[in-house]
């Protein structure tokens, strides 16, 4: 069993109740300009705008997690969330490096430093999920999942499992990674080499989906999440991706009239837009808006769910070591 599908029949549909995307410009749900050399930007104005008060004791990672997730929840009427069991699934590839680095720098400081206990507390891997649970008043299933650049897809798959089990009614699933101060370190940490990614600036983001049972409005459906192992030699040729996407489209939406859109993850190096256009697919490259970061998939999916009406979406991404993730969705 080297392939994990959405369920035993490989087909499932989870309503997407709301979505929100936040990139390096720190302007929620907007494609605003940004410059890698000026990153990271201070999130304090955003915190005030979304949360109404500063989060003085938290670092950027925690702030972005909370702002991104709350921006998503704010799109849903409060009565639609009342008495619902909501689970939080926070995906991050690199975690809260903005808290870890200053702490460990103090620990290793020449002739001794004074590491801050507050910084250590915030550097613990699940501190951000705790803060989010607290500000959103969610208890129960709160998970921090990490699997490099497939962290978000893994979280989405896990969230879907929890929804199917009935343990939760709604899942708040998001991906957050923050800009690492040194671009060289950032690229090394993501194992970016000339032949294994599309050339783009490094970015960051906190993008979220609220999925699950709803009696209210929805913006789309997640149709399938596929995570499997793929030999590197079978990777990302345009023909292979098209063939797979067509198969998924035929299985999941049949003859329904939808604009078919491919969302290429940053590991797809040579996506030929003309080739796909000629076959009836639009290629939506979201990376210029968010830059490369491990959970960029969350940004791409959330943005497409909000901005591409009446569309069939397939997000395709690969692990550097050969694993593959496909997420298929439709919008209203």
């Amino acid at each position: 069993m080297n392939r994990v599908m959405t369920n035993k029949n490989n087909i499932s549909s989870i309503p997407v109740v709301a979505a929100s995307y936040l990139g390096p410009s720190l302007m929620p749900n907007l494609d605003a300009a940004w410059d890698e050399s000026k990153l990271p930007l201070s999130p304090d104005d955003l915190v005030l705008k979304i949360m109404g008060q500063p989060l003085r004791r938290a670092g950027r990672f925690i702030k972005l997690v909370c702002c991104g997730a709350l921006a998503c929840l704010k799109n849903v009427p409060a009565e639609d969330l009342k008495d619902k069991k909501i689970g939080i699934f926070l995906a991050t590839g690199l975690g809260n490096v903005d808290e870890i680095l200053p702490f460990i720098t103090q620990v290793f400081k020449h002739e001794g430093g004074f590491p801050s206990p507050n910084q250590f507390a915030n550097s613990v891997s699940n501190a951000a999920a705790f803060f989010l649970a607290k500000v959103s008043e969610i208890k129960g299933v709160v998970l921090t999942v990490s699997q490099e650049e497939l962290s978000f897809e893994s979280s989405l798959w896990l969230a879907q499992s929890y929804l199917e089990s009935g343990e939760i009614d709604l899942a708040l699933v998001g991906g957050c990674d923050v800009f690492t101060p040194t671009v060289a370190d950032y690229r090394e940490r993501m194992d970016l080499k000339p032949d294994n990614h599309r050339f783009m600036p490094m970015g960051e983001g906190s993008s979220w989906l609220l999925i699950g049972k709803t009696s209210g409005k929805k913006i789309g459906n997640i149709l399938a999440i596929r995570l499997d192992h793929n030999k590197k030699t079978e990777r990302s040729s345009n023909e292979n991706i098209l063939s797979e996407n067509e198969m998924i489209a035929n299985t999941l939406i049949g003859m329904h009239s939808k604009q078919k859109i491919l969302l290429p993850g940053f590991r797809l190096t040579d996506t030929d837009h003309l080739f796909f256009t000629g076959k009836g697919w639009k290629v939506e490259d979201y990376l210029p808006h968010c830059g490369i970061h491990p959970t960029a998939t969350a940004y791409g999916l959330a943005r497409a769910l909000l901005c591409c009406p009446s569309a069939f979406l397939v997000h395709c991404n690969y692990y550097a070591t050969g694993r593959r993730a496909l997420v298929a969705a439709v919008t209203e």
Partner: protein
Amino acid sequence: MTQSHIDIRGWGAVTTLGWSARESAKNLLTGKVLAGDFCTSSHLINRELKAYEISYAGNPLEKAWAMIDSALTEAFSQAKLTAAEIAESCLLVGTTGGLFIRNEYEFTEIVRQNPGKESPPIACRNRGPGEVADAIAGKYGINGMIMTFSMACVSSSHALVVASQLLEQEKIRRAIVVGFEPLLNLTLQGFASLLLYDDEQCRPFCANRSGMQIGEASAAVILERNDLFVKDENNTELDSKGYRGVEEGATQAYMTIRRGAADVANKDSRMKTTRYRFAGGYLFNDNNSLTSAGVDGELAGNVIGHTLTAAEISPAEIVAIKAHGTGTRDNDLSEGRGLTRVFGDNLPPVVSLKGAIGHTLGAAGAVETALWLSCLEEGMLPKSFGFTQIDPDLGFAPSQVNIPAKDGAYLFTFFGFGGTCTSYIVIKE
């Protein structure tokens, strides 16, 4: 008692007590336990913090990999997993530090090789918590889903519970759950900065306790659905090596061949009579406090109560409790009072393993489960180390003698940073 669908097919561990779960259990049961001590590893810069350090001749990065490999090798061997079964398995890893040790080791090596020069700032080059799972999957050819839980002290206990839930849902057929934490300056200094470190000794549930002590360890626990087995002509489950991974859609001829081979294996399996089932897994996150589960014990009691209810097990059926028992005031009060709320005056034997192996943080779930299972295999439950005096706020003493490990239900509890709670039951039969 509920009918669990999940067997524990194998396990392995490396602790300060030994380079296998079996060796660790034997040393634990015979009292060959050393208290936490000052550390000697080249990457650790503070020599005044006592911890449970695994002896190793090579460098700390090599040791980290040796720990992982040793635990997995023991688990695969005990489970008699074939290469095909390993390949089709899913891998869930629980770790907080991941391979952060690489940053610390490389930095200290640079400093060591440049005596007298001012230290450069430390660089962060590890690839995040998921790096461990990716490396394990690559090395052992695991092609199933891989996923890492990075949730402080409940990382691998949460991973075990999530694995059990995915197995119950038939989302996966088999899970290899790994817990891994090497000693890091990051965590040693971090807990010291929070004033949660006991400078003398790790003393869970003891009136004289003043904090935790960290230990390093790795472990692997293999969970598998027990109702997907091939059955023979008499509808008897063939529960031995290699006959639990029959692919969906296998042909009748293939099944026949497997059954023929399984007859031989089934005879082997009769030699081993003990079976371990995983039941009642429950995870819960509270949002009241980042660092405490609430010293009134209400939260801990609720989590334990929910676990028992889910497993359809009454408190009276619990043979013994493998408690989290860190030795910090908040943990011991919240957990101890939670246990008292559930069990009242009929508290079964309570054992914390942290007085013997330290707090292995994100690895604790897998490590303590593996070590406990090996003790069950030895037929005895260990005493709780580090205890001398009853805390009047708790009113009970953890188990102070080794006791026979009867068949029945064993309760496991874990509580961690960020309001995280895990609890589950292992049934020996």
